[in-house]
């Protein structure tokens, strides 16, 4: 059977691990199946891909569920599950995954250089670029 062309686009707005994992897991599954994936990190999502925030985000959970933060962290560690950003880096290594950082948020957070962000970031872009790249997506999510 011919490979169906599919494309997943996600605006990653959240910076807590309970949302970053779903984004990373969907990206990994999609990359494994040969999907094109476009990720646009903005606001708290962008904050979490600062090199010094990757592990901080790993421990952060949405406030509504904060009583579960420690239990979740322990469970993830016991499962031997990769960290959210490791999963993303692996997904990138195996498929057609492009990762973008929002320029406006960078300015807002005082991030001057792309080098302050995780190495898996491809490019600093704006909303117009993301819209143009995502317009033919099969699945589009805001997480």
């Amino acid at each position: 059977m011919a490979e169906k062309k599919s494309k997943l686009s996600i605006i990653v707005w959240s910076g807590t691990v309970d949302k970053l994992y779903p984004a990373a897991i969907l990206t990994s599954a999609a990359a494994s199946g040969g999907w094109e994936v476009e990720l646009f990190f903005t606001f708290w999502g962008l904050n979490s891909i600062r090199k010094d925030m990757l592990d901080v985000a790993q421990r952060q959970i949405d406030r509504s569920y904060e009583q579960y933060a420690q239990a979740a962290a322990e469970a993830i560690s016991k499962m031997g599950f990769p960290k959210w950003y490791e999963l993303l880096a692996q997904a990138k290594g195996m498929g057609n995954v492009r990762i973008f950082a929002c320029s406006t948020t960078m300015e807002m957070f005082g991030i001057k250089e792309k080098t302050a962000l995780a190495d898996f970031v491809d490019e600093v872009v704006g909303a117009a670029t993301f819209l143009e790249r995502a317009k033919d997506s099969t699945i589009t999510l805001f997480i």
Partner: protein
Amino acid sequence: MSTARTLDVRGKFCPIPVMETSKAINEVPVGGILEVLATDPAAEPDIKAWAQRTGHEVVQVEKAEGYIRILVKRLK
């Protein structure tokens, strides 16, 4: 059925079994069988969905003691 390679992802959870299967299939010759051993309850439906999408074939699924054995044939 003779298998060209065995991938043991027992104890690993979604999406790791699919990711590892996707890598391992390339190490099997076309027409060869990749044997996947998994405990994740999602492994069977997920690997079937992945195979359908990528054009490979799940030729056999067997329940073993505490895990599942999935045979994937590389078709291209």
